[in-house]
């Protein structure tokens, strides 16, 4: 594997704690893949038999809402890893991944990954260090939810306008946290919709009549001689017609 690729691997969050020798060992057991814009890298529900470290380009991590519309739960770029948690917890892919531009990734299969862990203590230690960093970063999600909750409570829905609910610099497809975020996001959107509906009703309920003006205008019309005559005539007319 070329030096350029080794350089890129060393810059990734996942492998940055690895020594040069450990990095080379990883590179030897991995393969480089390329994707074109809009190409699907992973599908939700696929078996999780490998993970990726992004060397170049950007990808979106997507899921679908109750209506089947795509929700982008995250955008990831160079240095970030995708699908690595599924490797450990043995569950299928919890979200889809789609290339946004020309993408270069390093793919490490589950088998190769475990072999490396078994055979090279330096790799294992480096990755463990990486994971503990990640754990620290996953609090970003929690902080985000706290931030959104506070804003929602204050009636500030401006964050909904950013259709992408999160850009997490740590990069992550921490499935449950991401799901929490997207659920939270659509909940707030629904709350806002209901609130907007309610506003229409409030608009309707605020029909205000200026009673003073009403009386003034009524008096202006009824105080004329014309009106007094009209009232008399109307009364006479009604009596006449009723007697018919």
């Amino acid at each position, binding site marked *: 594997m070329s030096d350029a690729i080794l350089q890129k691997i060393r810059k990734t969050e996942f492998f940055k704690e690895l020594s040069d020798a450990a990095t080379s060992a990883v590179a030897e057991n991995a393969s480089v893949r390329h994707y074109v814009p809009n190409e699907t890298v992973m599908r939700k529900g696929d078996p999780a038999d490998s993970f990726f470290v992004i060397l170049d380009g950007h990808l979106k991590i997507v899921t679908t809402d109750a209506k089947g519309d795509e929700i982008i739960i995250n955008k990831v770029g160079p240095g970030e890893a995708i699908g690595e948690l599924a490797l450990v917890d043995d569950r299928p892919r919890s979200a889809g991944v789609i290339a946004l531009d020309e993408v270069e990734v390093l793919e490490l299969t589950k088998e190769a990954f475990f072999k490396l862990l078994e055979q090279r203590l330096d790799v294992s230690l480096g990755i463990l260090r990486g994971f503990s960093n990640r754990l620290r970063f996953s609090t970003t999600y929690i902080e985000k939810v706290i931030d959104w909750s506070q804003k929602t409570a204050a009636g500030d829905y401006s964050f909904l306008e950013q259709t992408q609910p999160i850009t997490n610099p740590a990069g992550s497809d921490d499935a449950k946290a991401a799901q929490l975020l997207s659920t939270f996001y659509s909940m707030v959107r629904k709350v806002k919709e209901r609130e907007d509906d309610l506003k229409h009703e409030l608009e*309707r309920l605020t*029909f205000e*009549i200026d009673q003073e*003006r009403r009386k003034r205008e*009524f008096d202006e*019309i*009824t105080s004329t001689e014309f009106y007094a005559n*009209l*009232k008399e005539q109307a009364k006479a007319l*009604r009596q006449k017609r009723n007697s018919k």
Partner: protein
Amino acid sequence: MAGKIVSIHSFRGGTGKSNTTANLASQVALTGKRVGVVDTDIQSPGIHVLFGLDEQKMGKTLNDFLHGKATIREVGFSVGDNPGDGEGLVKLAGKNLFLFPSSIKGGDISQILREGIDFNMLNEGLQTAITEFELDYLFIDTHPGLNEETLLSIATSDILIIILRPDSQDLQGTSVTVDIARSLDVPNLFLMVNKALPKYDFAGIKSDIEKQFQATVTSVLPLSFDMAENASKDLFSLRYPDHEWSVALKKVVPYILEAK
């Protein structure tokens, strides 16, 4: 029993009086009643267009009657005998529907504005129309606001239908008309909402306005592009009887037929 005068009024212009009057009168005529329609919007007549009448087809007018140049019998134009060729209008063929149009000639309009209207004469004309044409209902399309001929039509009406848009400005203006109608002892007062944005809760609008005025809101008619596009050429509710606007308009008919 003598025929009833049904006045259609609104505080602001362009609320839908002419379209409502023409469609309601036609719907009532379709039930077999004998119906007349008078355009007392002498300043800016318009309802004749909805019945397919143009300047050429128009014979004697209300203006001629008011100037002593024609009798009411001569002014009455039988829509049933001369239905226009609109898809909706043809349904009026053979019905007893008579239009008493106002002149659309500039000279006639300025003359009557200059000389004013003889109210006794107008009043007499309305009564004569009812007796000579044996009308069950005489609909009056009015000029917006509360000018003298409008006050007269309110004073003589048995049924007053005030049309309003669901906004505060219209409610304010309507409140005065409601008070006037009560002061003039109009026996049947109804409100009809037109041009309501479909996103609003129509039932809510109805109950809010009823509460404000302690008066019946017959129905709430939606603001509709179909209506804006197709009205004023033909009778919308006859042409598109299942349209939302038409369905809501037809809800007014029983209030008229059952009014005492």
